[in-house]
């Protein structure tokens, strides 16, 4: 557990970067600091590993004041990932990752072997291990940065905008992989970002900060969307709050049976099964939905080129937002629901989902 106790940082030029910050970062969870540029997120984060010492107030890790600990040994027990990766350009990927274990006295061979395993775990091809950082893409560099921070298996991980410098698609993969890793590792993670969507996605709890280093609200993502503390938070969290909040609500929505046809069947069979309906759902040989077709426009066969693929798929355990999106994006208006293996369970329409939302609200 990390506790900020009225921590204040005033820089030599009298800038008050953080003002009387008090908050608790629970062990084993992801806490996100989010806020506009210059609001004091980085400064707050760097107080945890003593890169910055509070002008007044304290930061405690497991009840021990950080200021009273030896900086180097404290930091060796805290993983640190930064936006610009900060990889050592003169060392290979595997040696970058081995840095802290070797500082802690682990032998080179052992440290390298552990690092190789870790690289795979963060989703990197072990063939990249012998490369130098300047031979990697931005996304790969960030993965190495994460592996390097995890190498000595520290209980705490500090991440300062680790994914901001990569394109949105890679960013989403990195976020997914981080969440997957975290499900295994259960680290205490403090994650800084200025991207509210990233914060809501990654965080178990989110601290919204405003310029001048004030904590505006500390809450779960769902609560931030449903109950922003003030106008600043509401504004910062942004539009579509009601819809986005559905991303954190799940509810039991009963699926309907859906007539289907297998890809490659005859157009004749499709028209028979559709029974006059405008759209018919097409499955592959493993009963996985692949798209919709209009039976009246089919030729001799149901072929891949006939498919309309606009509908998104929802897993049965997905939040209501995914179910609603599946219904709204489907050309037939019926959202396709699949199980974990991707096989068809049935469909839901928007009305079904909205009914569940109403019911949840009433409950």
């Amino acid at each position, binding site marked *: 557990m990390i506790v900020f106790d009225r921590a204040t940082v005033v820089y030599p030029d009298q800038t008050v970067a953080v003002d009387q910050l008090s908050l608790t970062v629970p062990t084993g969870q992801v806490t996100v600091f989010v806020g506009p540029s210059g609001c004091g997120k980085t400064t707050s984060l*760097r107080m945890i*590993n003593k*890169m910055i010492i509070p002008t007044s107030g304290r930061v405690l890790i497991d009840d021990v004041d950080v200021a009273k600990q030896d*900086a*180097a*040994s*404290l*930091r*060796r*027990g805290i993983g*640190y990932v*930064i*936006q*610009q*990766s*900060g*990889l*050592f*350009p*003169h*060392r*290979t990927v595997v040696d970058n990752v081995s*840095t*802290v274990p070797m*500082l802690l006295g682990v032998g080179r061979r052992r440290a390298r072997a552990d690092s190789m395993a870790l690289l795979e775990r963060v989703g990197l091809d072990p063939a990249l291990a012998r490369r*130098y*950082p*300047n*031979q990697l893409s931005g996304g790969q560099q960030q993965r190495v*940065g994460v592996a*390097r*921070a995890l190498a000595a298996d520290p209980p705490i991980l*500090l991440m300062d905008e680790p994914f901001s410098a990569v394109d949105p698609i890679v960013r989403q993969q990195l976020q997914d992989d981080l969440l997957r890793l975290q499900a295994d590792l259960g680290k205490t993670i403090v994650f800084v970002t200025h991207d509210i969507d990233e914060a809501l996605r990654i965080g178990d709890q989110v601290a919204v900060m405003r310029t001048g280093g004030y904590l505006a609200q500390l809450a779960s993502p769902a609560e931030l969307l449903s109950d922003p503390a003030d106008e600043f938070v509401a504004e910062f969290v942004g539009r579509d709050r009601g819809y986005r909040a559905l991303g954190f609500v799940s509810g039991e929505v009963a699926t309907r049976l859906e007539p289907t046809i297998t890809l490659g069947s005859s157009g004749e069979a499709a028209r028979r099964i559709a029974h006059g309906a405008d759209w018919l759902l097409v499955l592959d040989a493993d009963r996985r939905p692949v798209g919709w077709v209009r039976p009246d426009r089919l030729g001799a066969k149901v072929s891949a080129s006939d498919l309309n693929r606009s509908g998104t798929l929802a897993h049965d355990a997905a939040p209501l937002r995914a179910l609603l999106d599946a219904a709204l994006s489907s050309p037939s208006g019926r959202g396709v629901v699949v199980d974990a293996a991707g096989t068809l369970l049935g469909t839901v329409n928007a009305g079904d989902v909205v009914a569940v939302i109403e019911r949840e609200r009433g409950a």
Partner: protein
Amino acid sequence: MIDVWTWLTSGANWVGTDGIWHRLVQHLEYSGSSLAIAALIAIPLGLWIGHTGHGRVVAVSLANGIRSIPSLGLLFIVLLLLAPHIHNGDAFLIPSIVALVVLAIPPILAGAYAGVEQVDPAARDAGLGMGLTAWQVLWRIEVPCALPLMFGGFRSAALQVVATATIAATVSVGGLGRFLIDGLAYRDYSMMAGGALLVGLLAITVDAVLAGVQRLLVSPGLRS
């Protein structure tokens, strides 16, 4: 040209205390010791300036000031200042070496501080944040990353010193410069040209050797 070739290839010119071999070794001794002394002064100072950012302005203007003095002028200034205080046979040798040291310091110093300064601040920050001490950051990150520029500075100092060591002969010290001075005195132009040619060849060879060492020591990750 043919005379130069004859001078260079006649075996008699290579042996003895005023032969080519001996002069070459002398030349290397002066240049090598000047460079070593300059490096001992300039590298720690440059690393300190680069690491802390202190004293940068002073170093830059001092280095530029020294660079603007002509080499021969520098030699005579040092000679005038020092010679009265030295009373043994080294009266000319020591001022020559001092002049070469002074000449070699600016490029080595500039290479060292610029090398450390250009290290990615994020790598430095990550190093500290991961628990390296300031000393470990200097030796394990800053110095290895500064090596390409440090070598650049040292190589240009070496070229300059090898070339300039020639003028030490004007104050009756040995080295390859003797062939130029003596050649002039005897009006033996093939000796003069041969000596100049040897200085050039030596400079190229020294630079090639240093380039080889640089290849061995600098991480492939720093080659762009």
